[in-house]
């Protein structure tokens, strides 16, 4: 069973923490690694590529990491974080274009069930599907 880690990158620490809380509600008793890199170190809005690379390393158990982001600098900080990682870790990381909240919930559920990295990444990307199906 794979143990894929998840990283949430956001401009806002409260936004990231709340998204993780929402996802964890779906995962009772799970020890799934969900790391957060969000906000500036003075508590403001912003992203920090060094913090993202640290979060990726913390979430990585060897089976890969899927990174969910909000917008703008979160995306570029995640890309920059990849440059700061060792080659072997970087090769295991997927930056997901999924919407943050819906992607995180979808990814967390399958990751907690032991899915491999590509399956977790694919599930994140189809995060909007239930809402789209419902609204037609």
């Amino acid at each position: 069973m794979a143990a894929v880690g998840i990283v949430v990158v956001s401009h806002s620490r409260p936004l990231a923490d709340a998204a993780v809380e929402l996802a964890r509600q779906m995962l009772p008793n799970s020890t799934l690694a969900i790391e957060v890199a969000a906000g500036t170190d003075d508590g403001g809005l912003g992203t920090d590529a060094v913090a993202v690379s640290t979060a990726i390393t913390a979430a990585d158990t060897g089976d890969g990491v899927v990174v969910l982001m909000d917008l703008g600098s979160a995306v570029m900080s995640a890309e920059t974080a990849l440059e700061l990682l060792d080659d072997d870790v970087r090769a295991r990381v997927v930056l997901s274009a999924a919407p943050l909240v819906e992607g995180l919930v979808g990814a967390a559920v399958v990751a907690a069930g032991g899915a491999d990295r590509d399956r977790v990444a694919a599930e994140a990307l189809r995060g909007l599907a239930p809402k789209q199906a419902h609204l037609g």
Partner: protein
Amino acid sequence: MGTMDADALGAWVREYARAVTEHRDELTELDSAIGDADHGTNMHRGMTAAVAALDASPPTDGAALLKTVAMTMISKVGGTSGPLYGTLFLRMSGALDDGSPAAFAAAFRAGVEGVVARGKAELQDKTMVDALLPAADALTEAVGAGQELDVALRAAADAAAKGRDSVTPLVARKGRASYLGERSADHVDPGAESAVLLVEAAAATLGRS
């Protein structure tokens, strides 16, 4: 003309920090018109932290100094300009070579190409690239033609300002400003403005070393 050692590059970085601080409110005002109103604050925070890092542990060579600035910008700026300016300084650090004027011009070009790759912006998208690419071209051309570095950097700073001004009428196609569509036209791009300050700081310091 001296080489681009830690003293020379440190003077550039400190002059840029001073200029960013002087223009902090102006940069934020430009960004409030077409972005998220944090560019001046972010650049001030990043460059102040960069100078503090240089003071705390003075690097002994130019490449190490640029790397310290890069890592500080990447970590402390918070906005998109963190990864972008951080990548510029990081790629320059890796390409500085012997620190001769020709090597500096090549390193600056490598840095600008890093910004282009990171931001995936093209000319006329109305970003910092519209100031940086013409500056890199002018610097490379002038140094290649055997101009002294002060003359070459003056040409680069003028090209940066001209590039910034050329995209002011345009609609932004990248970054937060692109969310605004037509409303972004006829505003100075804040990233292009801070990029002009960077090249002006180089002309004011490196050209005189």
